């Protein structure tokens, strides 16, 4: 019999972890139910992205002109913020896999702070847009822009609620190296929100 506590062999995202020791046939991280939700969300956003792209092809000049009016710097800053928050959530997941629940909570709180920063910048951007008289009925580009970004905004809010619940449970010591499905479930949702924004940023703010 061997003594000591059992630590999962894939507990760290590190170059120090031998690739040969990594099991590449694991199930999806977290609760499988969240993945059904994630795939459904990705499908919805995928259809909206396709609709935007084809609408643009039919109204090229109008889309290009309206796109120039967007605050690209805020879109860029928000991308950096969301990517970093996603990284923090990944570190939270790694922390709990080695039983560091307080560190897990700290990473999640940091991610929540960045999520709040994203919302503030997006509200500033919406305020600027509305101050210029832009609305859903201004034209087809702004309809897509406002609908897509607001739809995503609500996903960020939902993600932050989930992360807050997970962080609270982490601080309460409800997760461990052996039982941390909740952290991976909430984290997977947050990474999906980040993934969607990465595509949205390129599509709406950059490509013209």
């Amino acid at each position, binding site marked *: 019999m061997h003594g000591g506590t059992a630590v999962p062999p*894939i507990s*760290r*995202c*590190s*170059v*120090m972890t031998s690739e040969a020791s*990594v*099991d*590449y*046939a*694991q*199930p*999806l*991280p977290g609760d499988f139910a969240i993945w059904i939700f994630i*795939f459904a969300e*990705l499908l919805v956003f*995928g259809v909206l*992205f*396709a609709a935007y*792209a*084809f609408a*643009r*092809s*039919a109204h*090229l000049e109008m889309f*290009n002109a309206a796109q120039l009016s967007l605050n*690209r710097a805020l879109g*860029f800053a928000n*991308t*950096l913020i969301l*990517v*970093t928050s*996603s*990284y923090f*959530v*990944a*570190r939270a*997941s*790694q922390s709990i896999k080695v039983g560091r629940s307080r560190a897990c909570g700290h990473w999640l709180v940091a991610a929540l702070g960045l999520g709040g920063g994203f919302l503030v910048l997006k509200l500033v951007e919406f305020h600027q847009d509305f101050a210029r008289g832009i609305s859903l009925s201004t034209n087809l580009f702004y309809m897509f822009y406002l609908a897509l970004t607001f739809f995503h905004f609500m996903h960020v809010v939902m993600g932050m609620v989930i992360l807050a619940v997970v962080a609270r449970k982490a601080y309460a010591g409800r997760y461990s190296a052996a039982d941390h499905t909740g952290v*991976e479930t909430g*984290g*997977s949702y947050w*990474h*999906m929100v*980040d*993934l969607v924004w*990465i*595509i949205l*940023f*390129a*599509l709406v*703010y*950059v*490509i*013209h």
Partner: protein
Amino acid sequence: MKLLRALPLRPCTASWVALLFLTTISFELGAAAPGGALMAAVLALTLIKGQLVVSYFMGLRRVRPLWRIVMAAYLVAVGGVIAFAYSIS
């Protein structure tokens, strides 16, 4: 030794740095003249960024190939549809 072991970047940390770098390149490319080359470059960078998030943040590099294929197919499909729509405009 402890310090030396701490020096190499974790894959997820390296991915984060790469994501910040690729996002900055995408943003700078946005100031370039519009055209197919810009669209192709930004889309390619976006697919790479998406794959980094899927593999190293979501942790799908360790899951069954089926799920990795599904996510990669999603990214390629979305990128392909966007590229096609832009090519006919």
